[in-house]
């Protein structure tokens, strides 16, 4: 499954689509001869999921200026992958992301995918190992949703939450939280929320607001808590392969989170462009593989 095969010598005019129907958003990528020619994004929905996924797909086709009839293969991934009736094959999020990262960031030894719902870490084979992957435990599901809700609660958009890190050094892990730290530590700029559970984290964040801690400080604490959860999944790998770690998924767009994760884990992260489209790109590449 070499990346070059589809990226380079594809059949003339081969158009494929990849759909990543996540718990919150559906991302679509249209590939033509290995090059991305269209993208689409929209809410995945629930009771209207089929229509919403199709909508996002149509949006991407429009973006590409193509017609559905021209698409030779559609592969779907993501939590909603069973609800895209029009698509051909389904592949797992792990496979799709791996496939995309081979293309987006060749030479990656470890990928971290952190999205609205799930966190996946996949490390390439170390010495003699077979390569391994880890999922988040249920207790830390929904990190992206949590951050999105917190941003709303803090009257920020996700971009503002993301820019919080600028100029502020994340505290060292050891100092970060000695208790929920209300309000004394909060005053000292060490506001922290529970990093073990998003439900508790939310309660703590509300407590901080209740005690007059600034939304910016709460936002930082929330980003750090999310970073600790993702870091825990990274640490779950028995044979880490951290030479070149690539972060994709919706959370990759949150700079503050990315920096907090780097500080906590001590790992330098590479964030490719369009990181949130990784799953969709991987699915489109997989579609190209099978169409050839």
């Amino acid at each position, binding site marked *: 499954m070499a990346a070059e095969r589809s990226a380079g010598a594809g059949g003339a005019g081969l158009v494929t689509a990849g759909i990543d129907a996540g718990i919150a958003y559906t991302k679509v990528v249209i590939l033509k001869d290995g090059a991305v020619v269209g993208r689409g994004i929209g809410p995945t929905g629930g009771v209207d999921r089929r229509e919403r996924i199709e909508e996002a797909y149509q949006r991407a086709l429009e973006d590409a200026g193509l017609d559905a009839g021209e698409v030779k293969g559609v592969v779907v991934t993501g*939590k909603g992958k069973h609800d895209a009736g029009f698509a051909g094959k389904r*592949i*797992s*999020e*792990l*496979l799709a992301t791996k496939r995309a990262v081979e293309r987006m960031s060749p030479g990656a030894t470890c990928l971290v995918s952190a999205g609205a719902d799930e966190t996946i870490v996949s490390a390439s084979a170390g010495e*003699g*190992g*077979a390569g*391994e*992957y880890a*999922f988040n*435990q*249920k207790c830390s599901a929904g990190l992206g949703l949590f951050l999105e809700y917190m941003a709303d609660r803090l009257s920020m958009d996700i971009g503002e939450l993301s820019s919080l890190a600028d100029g502020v050094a994340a505290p060292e892990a050891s100092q970060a939280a000695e208790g929920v730290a209300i309000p004394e530590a909060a005053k000292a700029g060490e506001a922290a929320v529970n990093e073990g559970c998003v439900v508790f984290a939310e309660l703590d964040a509300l407590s901080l607001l209740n005690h007059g801690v600034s939304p910016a400080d709460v936002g930082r604490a929330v980003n750090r808590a999310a970073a600790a959860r993702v870091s825990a999944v990274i640490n779950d790998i*028995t*044979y880490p392969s951290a030479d070149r770690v690539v972060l994709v998924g919706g959370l990759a767009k949150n700079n503050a989170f990315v920096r907090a994760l780097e500080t906590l884990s001590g790992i330098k992260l590479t964030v490719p462009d369009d990181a949130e489209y990784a799953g969709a790109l991987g699915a489109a590449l997989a579609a190209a593989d099978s169409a050839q």
Partner: protein
Amino acid sequence: MKNKQIWETRPLEFWDKAKELRARWQESSSDAKRVLGQGSTYDIDWAECFPAMNIVEDNPGGSMIQAKDSPYARKCRLASEIRGWGREICGYTNNLWGSMYLGYEQDGLPFPPRKFVVFMPAECDQHTKRGQQCRDFAPVPGWMSDCTIYLGEDDPVRDELFREHKVYCNFKQINDLERIFGQKFDDEKLSKMMDYSEEVIEYSRDIIMLMGRTIPSPLSVKDLYSVYTIGHLTKVDPEDTVNFWKMVRDEVQWRADNQIAAVGNERFRWVEAHPPSWHFLKYYRYMEKYGAVCLGSQYTAQNCGLLEYKPDGGIDRRVSMKYPKDTPIATREDALRMMLGPDPREPRAWKSDEYIRQDSIVEFADIMRADGALLPLWRGGVGCTLTRKEQAMRLRKAGLSVIYYEGSQPGDRTDLDEQRFLDQLDTWMESFGYEMLD
């Protein structure tokens, strides 16, 4: 990689007999409306030895409530919760004693009040405390024992003391029961049941080794689970039980000799660490579509003494109980000593020590020629969960692919996200490039 049928498969012939035995057990246990006591031990076969007392064991009760009637199980757990029990406490416990708190059983008939309880020795902390519920509920006599353990090399002095401690506990249980209830304990049965049990275990050992050493495996654990309890938790006539297990062993042997597969498209073999969620055994069949077969778990293969450590440090088929068969049994204590065996630290695979629980799964996987391991992470059971993460690390070091799934406990469906579990199985198989058989 699409897959297709490679080996011949055949329906299992012992299946009808198993159904018959189970039906017979059901029939006899429907008498259990007059249950007197709650026996909770691996050691003494209370039901056989105190025939008039109609003693039931608690483990199957709790798990069957969930498997048979989910809404009722939910009610049971709620009944426990609102009387002070943690929601993360073992589902077997909360199901079983929940029905006591509700006051009625699945079929609507009154919950038979227990007249006494014998606690299970403490392999798992939640077993240790499982007997007290009915004693706190209403004052009835109860007895307990200990799960004695130490780390490191065998220590004869400690062995001796621990053994005598356990003998004393069992001895007191029996004597007190006789004294209080005026029933005679059948000492002969005690020895006889040990023999029967050893015979059944002998056949089980054969079966496990045949599954491990044969490709394709003649039997999957899915099949094994449907007969697994016969003779252990599902009590029927001892001789019938032994004959049944001989029948199973013979058939498995024949299948192995003739390359009859449990899963015709077998191409991936995996082991587990613990019982599955009893209400959701479907995932075995789901995995079969990928050509994946499960060969058992530490639970099926090690806890009942099927395998043992050899002097060279490896793990292999257990020869037999180490106590010589011709040791004279003059007294009840002798019989109990004999029953407990020479190693008072057993069963160690349950109660973790510094290496057994973590390492032995690697050896087990090796015997089973497994490619991967699926480890359940049971939130609601300390004994169910201890060391799982370390097991995964060691299995990975041995080159196996390991995944987990999370749930409450084998007898509690609450937190098993079935769809997420199946998605993760898909991911697992896809990571090997396997596709489902259409």
